[in-house]
């Protein structure tokens, strides 16, 4: 499982650790290297790529590695964008909608209950639909927005992956994460990679994202 480091990526090490704990080989990928080095899945981690100065994820989408990631995703490779990575996926048009400034304008970090709505994606098959998990949320621009039609479509097609239980940032329709039509690309604002060890996380609920993708890859072989 590859984890891309952009300048300003921060949770890249954490995503690598989560991949490792789930049983994967974690391969660091570099923004300026177009090659994916043979990985079977890609994580775009959290952080503040390029300082988030223009618009979160807006510069990262032009990184040299991104066309390869986009092509691979269109070809069915599992891609997970967490927090800043979700923003990059939206900027890359792999996922619809956008992430904007939190409703009360403050950065917020807390342990966040989520209801898994779609347990059929490459990254959520270890869960059951309706299951409530607790993982940390931490962002300044995590308010998911989209036009009514997009939101209707996402909900009608079951492409909302998880809803907030107690919306921390004003996201429309309490959406915390979404997927593409094929279910291989998932963007999620909270941080499953920070809920993989009892010692450091609020739970180990987040591990399922990483075990799900391993299982789907094994099945596909």
């Amino acid at each position: 499982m590859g984890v891309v480091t952009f300048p300003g990526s921060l949770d890249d090490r954490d995503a690598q650790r989560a991949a490792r704990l789930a049983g994967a080989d974690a391969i660091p990928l570099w923004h300026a290297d177009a090659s994916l080095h043979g990985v079977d899945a890609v994580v775009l981690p959290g952080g503040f790529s390029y300082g988030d100065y223009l618009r979160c994820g807006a510069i990262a989408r032009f990184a040299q590695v991104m066309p390869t990631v986009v092509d691979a995703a269109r070809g069915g490779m599992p891609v997970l964008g967490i927090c800043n990575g979700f923003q990059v996926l939206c900027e890359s048009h792999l996922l619809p909608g956008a992430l904007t400034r939190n409703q009360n304008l403050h950065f917020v970090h807390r342990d966040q209950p989520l209801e898994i709505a779609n347990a059929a994606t490459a990254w959520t098959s270890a869960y059951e639909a309706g299951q409530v998990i607790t993982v940390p949320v931490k962002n300044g621009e995590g308010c998911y927005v989209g036009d009514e039609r997009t939101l209707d479509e996402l909900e009608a097609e079951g492409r909302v992956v998880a809803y907030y239980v107690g919306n921390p940032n004003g996201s429309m329709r309490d959406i915390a994460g979404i997927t593409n039509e094929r279910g291989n690309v998932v963007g999620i604002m909270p941080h499953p990679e920070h809920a993989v060890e009892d010692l450091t996380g609020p739970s180990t609920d987040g591990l399922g994202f990483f075990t799900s993708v391993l299982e789907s890859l094994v099945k596909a072989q």
Partner: protein
Amino acid sequence: MIDTVTNAEATASDAMPYVELGLKDDEYARILELLGRRPTASELAMYSIMWSEHCSYKSSKVHLSQFGKIPKGERMLVGMGENAGVIDVGEGLAVTFKVESHNHPSYVEPYQGAATGIGGIVRDILTMGARPVLVMDPLRFGDADHPDTRRVLPGIVAGIGGYGNCLGLPNIGGEVVFDPSYQGNPLVNALCLGVMPVERIQLSAARGVGNVVVLLGAKTGRDGIGGVSVLASATFDEDGPANRPAVQVGDPFMEKLLIEACLEIFDAKLVEGIQDLGGAGLTCALTETSAAGKSGMLAHLDRVPLREATMDPTEVLASESQERMLAIVTPENLDAVLAIAHKWGVIATAIGEVTEGTRLQILWHGEAVVDVEPGSLADDGPVYHRPMQRPADLAALNDAAAPAYPQATKELLLAMVASPNLCSKRWVVEQYDRIVMGDTVLAWPEDAGVVRLSEQTGLGIALATDGNGRYTRLDPYAGAQLALAEAYRNVAATGAVPISVTNCLNFGSPEDPEVMWQFAEATRGLADACTVLETPVSGGNVSFYNSTAGTPINPTPVVGVLGLFDDVARRTPMGFQSEGATLLLLGDTADELGGSEWAWAMHRHLGGVPPRVDLAREKLLGEVLIAGSRDGMLDSAHDLSDGGLAQVLVESALAKGVGARVVLPAGLMPFVQLYSESAGRALVSVPRSEELRFTEMCGARGLPCARIGVTDGDVLEIQDVLTVGLAELRTAFEATLPALFGPLAGASPDHPSVAS
């Protein structure tokens, strides 16, 4: 026209504006003597900066020398004098940590002042060769409901979060204290800790004739000029903050890149010496590296990349633009250093070289604008034995009668937990990323932050910062010791072994003899206590001139204690874990409410004397808490301090929503038992199966241990005194800051606090 050395020699008797730059008559006379001519404009700026209180420690030096006499122990690899002390933590790893103030900039421009406070301390840690892995922020503001606090606090909190979050450093703790003595001078202290393999320790000395001086990082601009010499070394007047251009502007993304580039350069062993640019900018970095190496140095100032082409050499030397480092590199390694910088998108420029002799020469388009002995700037600055005098009002303060003690009602408890200093600080800390890097084991609201250093072995550290300005006002010697004792206790409560101390000494003007007396007493108290507790001081910072319109702040030594874990999996949290555990109160409770939170919160009363200090008891208590953690006997442990036993019961119960039934021992009235702030105490919860073993251990070691109840249900019941539901407690505890500063994320104005 640029004032060159040649020009200064030709116009040797010209008057120079030294008073405006903060230099005194006798200091200027000394500069004339050292140079044998008048200084150039650039030299004058450099002397004013390097001889400022902030850089030279001229008023504090004679007192700080006491810290050097504390036995160093076996772990201190680098002590005071470098940018930060370095402690050996075993397994081939070392940590370096330090706390610094950024008080005045944060009052003038809260967001940028606080943000660059983080940036500055992080570079201090980086420059030692360490990867920064956490920050903490001890903060002090004026009254919570004062209109100016609404200007200052949200900006400072957003600045700390904005910079630290973007840098990817978890903020694992700190303090938020309100007191009117900080109304015109809030305290924004920032602590950073870094980790490195022992062999990666870097020092600042520039050595090796012909080695290249490389400036890394951001371009130099006009921000922060006069920051240390004027802003940090003078008091505010009644008109409040001005002088905004003296505050630097931060770019955390550049700092993140600078960190990664420097660490890669260190790992490749490509630098001979390295120094961060913080307060005093290039002036300090060029001076300190050449003075430390006892080397000469030639710098071409016109090669420094500038944000504004019209800057003159004096401005370039004085600029405090952030996110810059100065490296000393051999000519053979220069290309490799430039290549790594390029990889990370960091500008790197060779601006000079190490030379024969001991002169620091700085050229501007080929003409010398500075020609000095760097040692005269760095080491030959003035040293003052300032006059000292016990404050005239202290006897009356110590004799002031306490307010009458009330009954310990439920209403009192709810009012106390809702008071600004005791209430939940969720509004603040939710704006900080506390878990990035994935090694945070404990963070706010725990007694101390705990961070894992090794995933393989569980090696880790605990850190706590504490300070109590009211105690220190009433008795500076005891107040400083109580600050240390509390931080020590907080660290021990988690199960970590305290091993080292850093401090940030926030005081009023050293030119005020009463302030100087407070400073002398506090440093003496701290040094004495560090000796007894065997926690040597690895570094620190003095912040003077925290005074507005002639009125100093309460003297506030903030003490940070570092503790060590063999295995962080054995940490003890502060919250009750499950029902049915036995509550044991460790230590002795006396009638000690002088300077207490109760007297202040309920009566705005500050008087009497602070709680008695018993360092032997602190040590014993620490040993018991550490043994309890090591042997797995404790469910929870929480140190007693501000707000006494009542506050601890509330915090431990609310942590996981596990209540308690408490029976207070006979003897002292319930009010005193609940709100006294006697030191040397902790509340632990122990599973029934471990109770006998633990109490026998206390008995054998001679630590008083009283069984005061059990964990149970969803209420806090103190038999024959009060009963209150946890939900009602939580509402009172959580509502205060959102009501003052706006709703929490996800909450509506009608329901400003979020239960969780």
